[in-house]
């Protein structure tokens, strides 16, 4: 078969991979695809374009900022040290960027159906294997090309052809290493997330793995803002340690090609040059090995698929009975930890800290005042409404079960509120720590997030009631966050309103009396009253 033909077919497979990755990202997408398949396909295409554009933007920004921070900030150590650390940091961050930006798409590769169609067509086994490798290449071709062109070009223009060439080698090495790591981790995550192991440890592993991955994504997006500071800190530490710092860094930092590239321009000791050279060679060899094993890993998937634990099929048939609400929670936790999209829902209130930080920081100058505290809580609690919607959305697949089961609406909402409670309390606890570290004007400010906790019951039950009334006529219904914007904004408005009542009471009391104690008392009273009222009234609006 001609390469051109293979390349074209690989394009079809890589589209399918993206599609499977999209479906795998969130269980709700499986229901949505039946509603309006053309719209979903358009969304996938635009999401891919957006993802490609975003990667290009991030890499370009990362390259410009790294070089600019090292080249122009003359106050922090000598040029060769600044530049070597800048290039090394760029390579390290590029590795993380490729890894996290493409993780979701890669899990689609491990879906057995990806190779279903080509495997029934008249292809030889070798052709089939090559097709998979090419398809994988096509998924990453855009970010890979951008990384390997943009940064070496910047180095070439700013520093010169020699550093530009070494930077190119460094970028190629990094690309290979990150794709190798990506295949290994996403394969591992796919197996873990689709594991049916009953043990609690397995669920915990899935949550931790998912949490790490999701937080990693957000950290990657946020890193550009702190890059110059990071370079400054690293140069500062290296200068502080003295001559020994660079050889050690050259050896232990996995992207020491940056140090090697600058070391040959002069300024470093011969030991540093030798160590950086050896380390670069070593990482280069790992990259070659990663490239080779990536190929064989993919070929194994094409031929055999992803095999899961064999011990699972040997387990005895048994039924583990809990009380109904615990049963619903266990089912929800299993569903939520089997794909990255759902994990995102679970950790959303915590992720909101990243976007709330600049907003809150802007309002607090010398002291952290109650206005900033209220703003932080209101922001995070409003988005927590989305998280509750996500929990409701977990039921979009199991319609047949719910139709025949004696589950009351109250039972479902209570179970969801308990899960939501953990998220909400955790988010408020993080806020307490954050506020404590922000020089609060009075320690009583730390109680504002804590006294907001009782409101979580009212928030959860009222969002559930709102969704069930509007979309289910009072009956349990699963709503898709991505597809039903009106209901999503409605849920956020409900969440904002429920949170605003006790926070508003607190603010009003502060304005009237200047007393934090009275304000806090009013806040918790309103929060509890709200939850009692909601418990009394909301369920009357719902049907079983």
């Amino acid at each position, binding site marked *: 078969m001609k390469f051109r033909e293979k390349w074209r077919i690989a394009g079809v497979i890589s589209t399918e991979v993206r599609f499977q990755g999209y479906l795998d990202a969130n269980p709700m997408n499986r229901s949505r695809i039946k509603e309006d398949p053309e719209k979903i396909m358009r969304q996938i295409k635009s999401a891919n374009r957006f993802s490609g554009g975003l990667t290009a933007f991030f890499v370009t920004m990362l390259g410009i900022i790294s070089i600019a921070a090292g080249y122009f900030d003359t106050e922090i150590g000598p040029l060769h040290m600044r530049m070597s650390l800048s290039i090394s940091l760029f390579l390290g961050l590029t590795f993380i960027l490729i890894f996290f930006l493409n993780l979701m798409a890669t899990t689609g590769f491990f879906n057995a159906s990806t190779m279903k169609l080509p495997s029934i067509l008249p292809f030889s086994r070798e052709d089939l294997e090559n097709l998979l490798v090419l398809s994988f290449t096509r998924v990453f071709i855009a970010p890979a090309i951008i990384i390997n062109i943009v940064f070496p070009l910047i180095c070439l223009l700013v520093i010169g052809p020699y550093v530009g060439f070494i930077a190119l080698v460094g970028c190629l090495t990094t690309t290979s290493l990150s794709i190798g790591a990506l295949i290994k981790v996403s394969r591992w995550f796919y197996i873990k997330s689709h594991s049916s192991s009953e043990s609690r440890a397995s669920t915990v592993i899935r949550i931790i793995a998912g949490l790490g991955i999701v937080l990693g994504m957000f950290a990657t997006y946020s890193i550009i803002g702190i890059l110059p500071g990071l370079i400054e800190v690293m140069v500062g530490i290296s200068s502080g340690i003295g001559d020994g710092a660079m050889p050690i860094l050259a050896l232990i930092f996995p992207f020491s090609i940056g140090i090697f590239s600058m070391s040959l321009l002069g300024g470093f000791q011969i030991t540093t040059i030798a160590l950086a050279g050896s380390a670069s060679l070593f990482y280069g060899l790992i990259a070659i090995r990663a490239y080779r094993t990536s190929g064989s890993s993919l070929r194994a998937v094409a031929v055999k698929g992803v095999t899961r634990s064999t011990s699972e099929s040997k387990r005895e048939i048994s*039924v583990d009975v809990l009380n109904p609400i615990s049963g619903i929670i266990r089912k929800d936790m299993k569903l939520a930890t089997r794909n990255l999209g759902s994990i995102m829902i679970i950790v959303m209130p915590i992720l909101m800290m990243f976007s709330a930080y600049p907003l809150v920081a802007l309002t607090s100058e010398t002291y952290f005042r109650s206005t900033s505290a209220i703003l932080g809580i209101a922001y995070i609690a409003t988005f927590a409404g989305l998280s509750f919607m996500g929990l409701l959305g977990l039921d979009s697949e199991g319609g047949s079960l719910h139709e025949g089961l004696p589950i009351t609406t109250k039972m479902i909402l209570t179970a969801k509120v308990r899960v939501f409670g953990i998220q909400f309390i955790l988010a408020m606890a993080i806020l307490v720590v954050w506020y404590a570290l922000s020089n609060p004007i009075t320690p009583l400010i730390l109680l504002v997030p804590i006294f907001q906790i009782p409101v979580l019951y009212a928030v959860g039950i009222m969002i559930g009631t709102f969704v069930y009334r509007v979309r289910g006529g009072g009956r349990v219904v699963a709503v898709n966050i991505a597809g039903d914007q009106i209901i999503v904004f409605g849920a956020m408005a409900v969440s904002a309103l429920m949170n605003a009542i006790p926070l508003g009471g607190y603010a009003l009391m502060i304005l009237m009396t200047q007393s934090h104690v009275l304000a806090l008392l009013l806040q918790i009273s309103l929060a509890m009253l709200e939850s009692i009222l909601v418990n009394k009234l909301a369920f009357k609006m719902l049907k079983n």
Partner: protein
Amino acid sequence: MNTVEVKNLIKKYGDLVAVNNLTFNVKEGEIYGLLGPNGAGKSTTLKVLMGLLDPESGISEIFGINTVTDSIEVKKRVGYVPEEISLYESLTPRELFDFIASIRQIPSEIANRRAIEISRALDFTQHYDKTVVTLSQGNKQKTMLIIALLHAPDLLILDEPFSGLDVRTSRIMKDVIKLHVESGGSVLLSTHIMEMAEGLCDRVGIIDEGILVAEGTLDELRKQAESEGADLENLFLKLTGEDEDVREGVDTLREALAN
């Protein structure tokens, strides 16, 4: 007391009358088949009986319990298999059965025994720990059947239980229905597979455009249609007035294929 009692039931979707003044009952220990063409109102009737839809008017009761006002009590005593099976695809049957037994509060020992026995009987044990998404249509149907039987319900409501099943699974489904009745239960099923209804049901009700056009045993239907010796398929076509349409359709097709 009848197991199922439906009287003058009316259910509308906007201007469309899906179920129009429907009246029928299912007796204890009986297999009752609800027959009708696509869109006749069979599934709607079963959904009203499960408390999933509110009717405009009429009575719908199961074991004397009003299905509109007390659907939870109804669901405790009924095993329901809907037409379109939608399960949690990323869970395994084991995890689904854990969920069902927890909701229904079936004592562990009984749930274990039933799960083992039913899974063995349905030749399902090897699929116990596979994710639902990887199961075939037949095995998904078996999963749903185990779920419906796990609490040993008094009544089974099955919406098109034979559609999309292979011969073996159809046979298993048929045997499960017979066994359920032999052990004192009742069954209400909807189908448009006439051979199944003929071989399985004690009585059938034929509905068309939401109206019950005929009801009774096979012999009673023959009398109503004045067609002695006719099988259920022909009786169905005659009673729903579709026999003429079918004949015309076949003639047109014959002509089209001949040219």
